[in-house]
């Protein structure tokens, strides 16, 4: 692993060609669009991208226009990983038979939380088990935003969506966010990481590591959606910082099964007194508004409790001693 060798300075990034180009139809303040644009800056050579049905697919490929500066394939909602499998198999055999012009071609699959946690998990699990050499990037905006903000397996506890509305009897989503990155680690795959676009150098380094590793790599990226979160479009990146500072979304990586905290979360681990309360992150997001009503105080406490519990688990798996109060 040579990830530390890349600098990914602001200058480097600015100078790299745009492979996810402007003109797409994403909303103002779209987290996923920023994530994709940055991630494509971390590619290392010829790359083929395949994408699940979802916001980013829809906004970037409205015929006859395209935002993509690389070969790009979309087929269906649940097929990001199976498409990557087919593309990778084709590249492998064409290389073997001397029909590949390039020395090597990287394969990246992008999918949202619906295309990863839910409808796409079977194909993803299968592709990872088979060991295809590709990077799967989950851009997690925590609901089916493209179809109008319906809850997914990635929607956090308490969040109001159009299929888990905060009503008089049920206060938003009752179930908890599926620990997708842990599920991927349990596949014994070579590389799994979580990242947040506020810490973009960390994110890009992880993209590059994921591409360089032999075999499958999984990157879970936090991607705020102002439209679905009912949040200020100007604050998407701020939320992606707060999510890490409150430990709602710790950033870490697992290399060959060895887990370690990444710097932004490591800093929180080293100075637990600086760990912010989840309310700092939840406040201002319309999807959590109901949680701040006095009668829903329990809900807020529950989210804090789960967040603390999951943070403890992350610390433990990353070999950190808990310093939590």
């Amino acid at each position: 692993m040579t990830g530390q060798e890349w600098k990914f300075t602001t200058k480097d990034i600015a100078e790299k060609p745009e492979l996810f180009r402007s003109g797409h139809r994403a909303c103002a303040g779209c987290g996923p669009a920023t994530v994709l644009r940055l991630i494509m800056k971390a590619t290392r050579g010829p790359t083929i991208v395949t994408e699940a049905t979802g916001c980013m697919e829809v906004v970037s490929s409205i015929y006859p226009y395209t935002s993509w500066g690389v070969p790009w394939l979309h087929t269906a909602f649940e097929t990001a990983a199976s498409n990557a499998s087919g593309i990778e198999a084709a590249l492998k055999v064409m290389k073997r038979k001397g029909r590949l012009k390039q020395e090597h071609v990287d394969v990246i699959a992008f999918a949202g939380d619906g295309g990863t946690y839910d409808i796409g998990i079977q194909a993803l699990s299968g592709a990872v088990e088979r060991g295809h050499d590709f990077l799967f990037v989950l851009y997690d905006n925590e609901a089916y935003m493209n179809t109008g903000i319906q809850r997914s397996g990635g929607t956090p506890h308490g969040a109001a969506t159009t299929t888990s509305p905060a009503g008089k009897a049920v206060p938003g989503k009752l179930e908890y966010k599926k620990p997708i990155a842990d599920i991927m680690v349990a596949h014994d795959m070579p590389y799994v990481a979580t990242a947040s676009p506020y810490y973009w150098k960390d994110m890009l380094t992880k993209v590059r590591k994921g591409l360089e590793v032999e075999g499958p790599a999984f990157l879970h990226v936090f991607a705020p959606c102002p439209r679905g979160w009912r949040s200020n479009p100007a604050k998407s990146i701020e939320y992606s910082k707060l999510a890490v500072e409150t430990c709602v979304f710790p950033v870490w990586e697992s290399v060959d099964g060895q887990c370690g905290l990444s710097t932004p979360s490591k800093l929180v681990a080293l100075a637990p007194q600086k760990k912010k309360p989840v309310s700092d992150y939840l406040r201002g997001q319309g999807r959590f508004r109901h949680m701040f009503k006095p009668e829903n105080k329990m809900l807020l406490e529950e989210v804090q409790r789960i967040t603390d519990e999951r943070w403890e688990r992350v610390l433990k798996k990353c070999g950190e001693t808990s310093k939590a109060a």
Partner: protein
Amino acid sequence: MQSLAKQKMVALSGDEAVAYAAKQSDVDVVAAYPITPQTIIVEKFSEYVADGEVETEFVCVESEHSAMAASLSASVAGARAFTATASAGLALMHEMLFVTSGCRAPVVMAVANRALSAPINIHGDHSDSMAQRDSGWVQLYAENAQEAYDSIIQAFRIAENADVLLPVMVGLDGFTLSHTLENVETLMDADVKEFIGTRQFSKVLTHEGKTVPFRLDPDNPMTLGPLALQNYYFEFKRQQEEAMKNALGVIQQVNSEYAKVSGRNYGDGLVEAYRLEDAEVAAICLGSTAGTMKTVVDGLRQEGVKAGLLRLRTFRPLPVEAIRSALANVKAVAVMDRCMSFGGNGGPVFHEVRHLLYDVDKRPFVVNYIYGLGGRDTSPTELRSIYENLQAILQTGRVEMPIQYLGLRG
């Protein structure tokens, strides 16, 4: 006339014949998931891989849905892709079948035709592939293992033809063909390779005015499978229909070119007329039933009955003109459906054949026989009764029961 290529007779089941044809077709990627009665195809192909007899990348996927997604993506990435399935597996692929044809990916697939659940049944009928008849795939149905072998080889030529560029499925009846040993004449590897050739790519025009190959190529980035809305979607679909029309001619051309190499042809590639020239009564069927039917026709002919048979080898695209012309002098036609179209007033082949006969000058009587569901055996005696009924219709000038079930209990 050029001399025929040297061939080797091998005892193969239909599934083995398909696997052997795929091997000889030098496929780059096979992505498949096992399902009875297709299993022998993937098992056999796995053996070729394990023994190093092929250079193919075999992707042992976790579902048929992924099998089709991977075949499609491998195909657009530049590989020659092959897969095989049956029944529930084909049903699970349903979504991806449309995407594959819509992406114009020339994937070839064998379908070991089998009944659909429920109740679950592993035996042969055409419910699986008939349910996919509008998925934009070319559909060929084989009469025997020999034809299954020949059709797989031909399918690559048809699918990859620049005027077609559509996926092709080759149906072979579950167990009756898939698991039954037959003597199959096989071509030499080199002759198959020469017949199919290396995969060619259509040329498309980019925004910048460059002409580039139609595939995912990092040197010429292309966005494939985009979102096309009210302003463009319709044109994409219309082009697929045009490709289907083109396939009619290409299937015939490939059939005759293959005959020059192998000595075997299947009618004109679209339909096979059997003793139809002066026939007054005729049946139409697909697949292995035609074999039995030919024997029945021979028997009737000996008795002086002017009986004939039309076998639809190609069901998609529907060979409208070929069927009309083959039936031009027939007075009563029985259309055989090994499939139900629930609530649809007859089976799918019946619907289509009767519809295309609406515009002919001398419209024959047309009746429907639904038969053989879930592998129900269909005896020569039962098949003979169809012709007897057609004769009765001609005598009385009346159709008592337009839709009948052959060999059904009670």
